[in-house]
């Protein structure tokens, strides 16, 4: 544990160095400082326990800004647990305990003095099932912004339009802003949830299987959206769908049984994985 703390980028760094050559354009331009230096999320030997049972064990990885990072792995491997650890959504479960260090923007999120609402506004989240509030479309998007202090109608209107446009939903709902969000289709609802998460101006967007409840067309739209959001946000996406991971992500982490097996460029993970376990999983022989 102490070892990993001293050398936070031990696992990802060599993998990245090795995989830089085949697809350099995906990454920071040549000559830019090492991406490891400006990682936005840094996990050092992070473990989370539900009582005695470990949810994730000793995860050490770095997630880079303005990139899409996919987390794949078989069911129950701890990928959602890790994702929810980043904005401390696991706090809702009684008896949760953590070890190690998990930093966002250089701040330890498990520091007892942390401002939890502030963290969650910095690290937005989109859930597996679309979960808009039973309120109007407008109120859904404005929800987070309202208690950030935005009270004036004009400011909120602006935020709502901007976020809905960013979530590629504006054209579809601009005439029904004050109708209930539950009247939207599933895909629209999920994009609304993304817009809602964007409204608090997060740096990071966590997506927990955002397309698992959607049809292929809606999934396509969400994936397009992820591609456009990448330029402004750091996106971490958990997915069961390996094609999706391959399509949308820049880097992929493979989790198994609560441990990080392999982490690297997506192309490498899917074409030349370093570990047998990863290869078995991505080729469908296991999991």
């Amino acid at each position, binding site marked *: 544990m102490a070892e990993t703390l001293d050398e936070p980028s031990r696992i990802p760094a060599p993998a990245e160095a090795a995989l830089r050559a085949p697809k350099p354009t995906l990454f920071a331009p040549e000559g830019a400082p090492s991406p490891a230096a400006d990682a936005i999320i840094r996990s050092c030997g992070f473990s989370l326990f539900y009582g005695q049972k470990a949810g994730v064990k000793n995860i050490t990885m770095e997630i880079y800004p303005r990139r899409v990072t996919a987390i794949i792995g078989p069911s129950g491997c701890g990928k959602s647990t890790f994702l929810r650890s980043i*904005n401390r*959504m696991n706090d*809702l479960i*009684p008896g949760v305990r953590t070890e190690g260090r998990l930093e966002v923007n250089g701040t330890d999120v498990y520091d007892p003095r942390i401002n*939890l*609402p*502030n*963290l*969650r*506004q910095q690290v*937005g*989240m989109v*859930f597996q*099932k679309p*979960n*808009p*509030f*039973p*309120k109007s479309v407008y109120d859904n998007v404005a*929800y*987070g912004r309202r*208690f*950030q202090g935005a009270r004036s109608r004009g400011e909120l209107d602006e935020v709502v339009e901007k976020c809905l446009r960013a979530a590629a939903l504006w054209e579809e709902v601009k005439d029904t802003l004050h*109708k*209930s*969000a*539950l*009247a*939207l289709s599933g895909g629209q609802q999920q994009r609304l*949830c993304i817009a*809602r*998460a964007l409204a*608090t101006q997060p740096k990071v967007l966590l997506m927990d299987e955002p397309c698992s409840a959607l049809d292929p067309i809606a999934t396509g739209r969400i994936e397009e959206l992820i591609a456009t959001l990448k330029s402004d946000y750091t996106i971490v996406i958990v997915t069961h769908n390996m094609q999706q991971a391959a399509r949308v992500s820049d880097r992929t982490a493979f989790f198994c049984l609560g441990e990080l097996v392999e982490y690297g460029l997506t192309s490498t993970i899917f074409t030349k994985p370093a570990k047998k376990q990863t290869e078995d999983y991505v080729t469908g022989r296991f999991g």
Partner: protein
Amino acid sequence: MTNAPLTPEPTTSGRRLRLRGLLDKGFTLLAGGAVLAIALALLVVLAPMLWRGASAVVFPGTVEFRRMQLSQFNRGDRVGVAVELGEVAEARKPVYALLDRFKRGIATDDLKEDARRLYREFGKQLDGRDTAAADRAELRSLAKRLRDDFTAALETTDKAAAQAALGRVLQNAEDARLKGTVAEGFFAMARDYGRIVETVDLGHRAEYAKALAEVQESIRGLFGPPPNAERPPLVMDQYGATRWDAAEKHLDRLLTAETWVAGGPGETLQRVRTPREQQFAGTDLAPLFPLVREHVTKMLQPRWAFYWQYFIDDSLSGHYFGGVGPEILGTLLITVLAILFAFPLGVIAAAYLVECASDSRTVQLIRTCINTLAGVPSIVFGLFGLAFFVVFLLPLFGLPQGSSALAGGLTLGLLVLPIIIRASEEAIRSVPQTYKEAALALGAGRLRCFLTVTLPAALPGILTGAILSVSRAAGETAPILFTAAVAMGSSSWPPWSALAKPTQTLAYSSYHLAVGDRLASLVPHNQYGMVMTLILLVLVLNIAAIVVRSRMARRLRGQ
């Protein structure tokens, strides 16, 4: 063997299918029957209540009703009522004439008093006159003789003796000395009484007197106090039958005498109904009965009345006349107080139980206590309210120690608290976890998450609990028996000005009217009317709450 489960024998399958169909049909039938039974029970219970209760509002009202409305509530067509009153007075005149005439022969106390008065006046007249003392003494003794003879005629039950006594009075009729004096009144009275003696069987005078009292009572019930009589102090005595159904009862008592006679040893009493015409056959009073029977509509002029003011009027003479306005206001007042008290408290308690409390032993104990509280008899709440709110708590805040709407509202609030807590708990628990997660993920604190997301989503369910509590609170009698209720009084406006005062409520007044006194049998329409009003009030409150709730739920569902 392996195929058997997949392709069973067709006959078995057919039989099984039929059995399954039969079972399905049986179940459907049973469920339908249960629903039908409930509907029928509701109909059987509610329909007569509402139907009879409606007669408090829509009924044939007599001229007495219009007179009462005009003089007590200053309502109605003043000129029209005056014209009507003139007409009915004219129609009733012969009735009173007949009564007066007959009364003289039966109720002789008045005549005796008249005779004594005449004698005294005659004495005074003599003193004022310029006559010799001897003459004066003689005249005085003559007058005394006249008085005593007349009194003797009144007192005897023997016809011949009475006629002889009257004859002795009348033989002085030509006495010149009495001409122009008040003593002439003796002769007029004697002649009058002589005529009555001809027709009335003096031997049965006591019976006649009793029957006459009944007749007079019935006439008073029908037409109110006789003309020229003093205005009775009680409002309920100032008017005759205001409703046609009441008039018919009085009419029946007027036209038929009812007596109970023993059939024989060991047998129960038998009711015997005799027409009054037969009872008074041959007397001066006999024509009265056919007269009233045939012209009663002319004497009362019944007409359909729509007395919607029943719902706003104060009651008069303890619900004999008037409406249930104060009861409605009082019921609403204490119900609103109860909800104002119990709703926030209940929702907060439920929120705590669901959101904050862990599933510890203490919390389980609290939950058990709440469930037990829901089963405590309401009279226990009433006594608790008396001991705690009325005697202890409210006096601490300077309120007089006595029942008040506030104390009643608080007691009812305690009564409905468990209902609200349980309904709210269920509603809050059933809000999807995903809503809470979404709010928390957006950086909302727990309180904000509860207030902005969980509570609005749970509100339809919470309102269901509130609706149940409203019905319960509005209909309860026992908890307010000692804490808030009073039977009489007028409405106070605005309602909150009555917070520190005891108040009337529909439930309590229904009870009071039923057990209080003989009034219940006199005003059955009022009892039904009160119950109907209570049912309607609860219905209206429920419908309003259901409309609000369904709108809210629809908005939540996004339609």
